[in-house]
């Protein structure tokens, strides 16, 4: 899965200083557990995203480590306190080191 997967972000465009906002992210990925078998009985190799990180101004806000027990198209929702305007960076790294990222601008007033 090296082609660019669909990423869905739910981030408010603007927030008041000090406001707590919810961020939802989803990336399209099979998260192949490595436990399944194909129609010919052959083992389907594991292919999962291992790491997720959400950061702003270089500082980690929230990070996750995934294992095969995470469902396909991993979805996460978490909360942050809006302090400064800036670019939120979301990145996912799969088990082989392939990296996908997406950004969203947050305006704090």
């Amino acid at each position: 899965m090296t082609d660019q997967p669909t990423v869905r972000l739910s981030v408010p465009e603007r927030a008041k200083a000090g406001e707590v906002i919810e961020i939802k992210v989803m990336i399209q990925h099979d998260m192949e557990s490595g436990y399944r078998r194909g129609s010919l009985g052959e083992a389907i190799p594991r292919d999962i995203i291992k790491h997720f990180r959400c950061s702003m101004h270089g500082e980690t806000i929230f990070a996750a480590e995934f294992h095969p027990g995470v469902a396909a198209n991993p979805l996460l929702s978490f909360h942050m306190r809006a302090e400064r305007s800036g670019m939120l960076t979301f990145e996912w790294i799969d088990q082989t080191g392939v990296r996908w990222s997406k950004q969203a601008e947050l305006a704090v007033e």
Partner: protein
Amino acid sequence: MKKTVARRRFLQGALILPMGWVMPSAAAETQARRQQVAAAIAEVFGPNRTVRAGKVQVRVPAISENGYSVPVAVEVDSPMTRDDHVRRIAVVSEANPLAVIAQFELGPQAALAKVNTRIRLADSQRVYAVAEMNDGTLWTGYGHSIVTLAACVI
């Protein structure tokens, strides 16, 4: 005549035997599940840690019709201030082939220790979450879900 007695004995035995099998295996399974959780906590947070029950809420549907995608909401009772916050959270399964499902790390800007995701469940079971606070204490809670379509091979 002789045959009838043998048959009766056999039938009595056949009745008693499964009871003997079922009763201890249920307890043994519960014990195996608790051990899997303890091993997973040691794997994530290191060995010989004291884990206290409380502060952590895990919400899973009471009945999961599809074990391949079960929504789970973890919430830790914490003010999330500089002096008192959650550092890490692990989601642990007691019955999946791999106990550790996901780990979360919360930075200083994470305002609430509240995380939602979707997981796979291989069987009806408890889903645990373990939170590590900044003072190093570990707290745990669980939710239980009956899985009607198991992610049999997760």
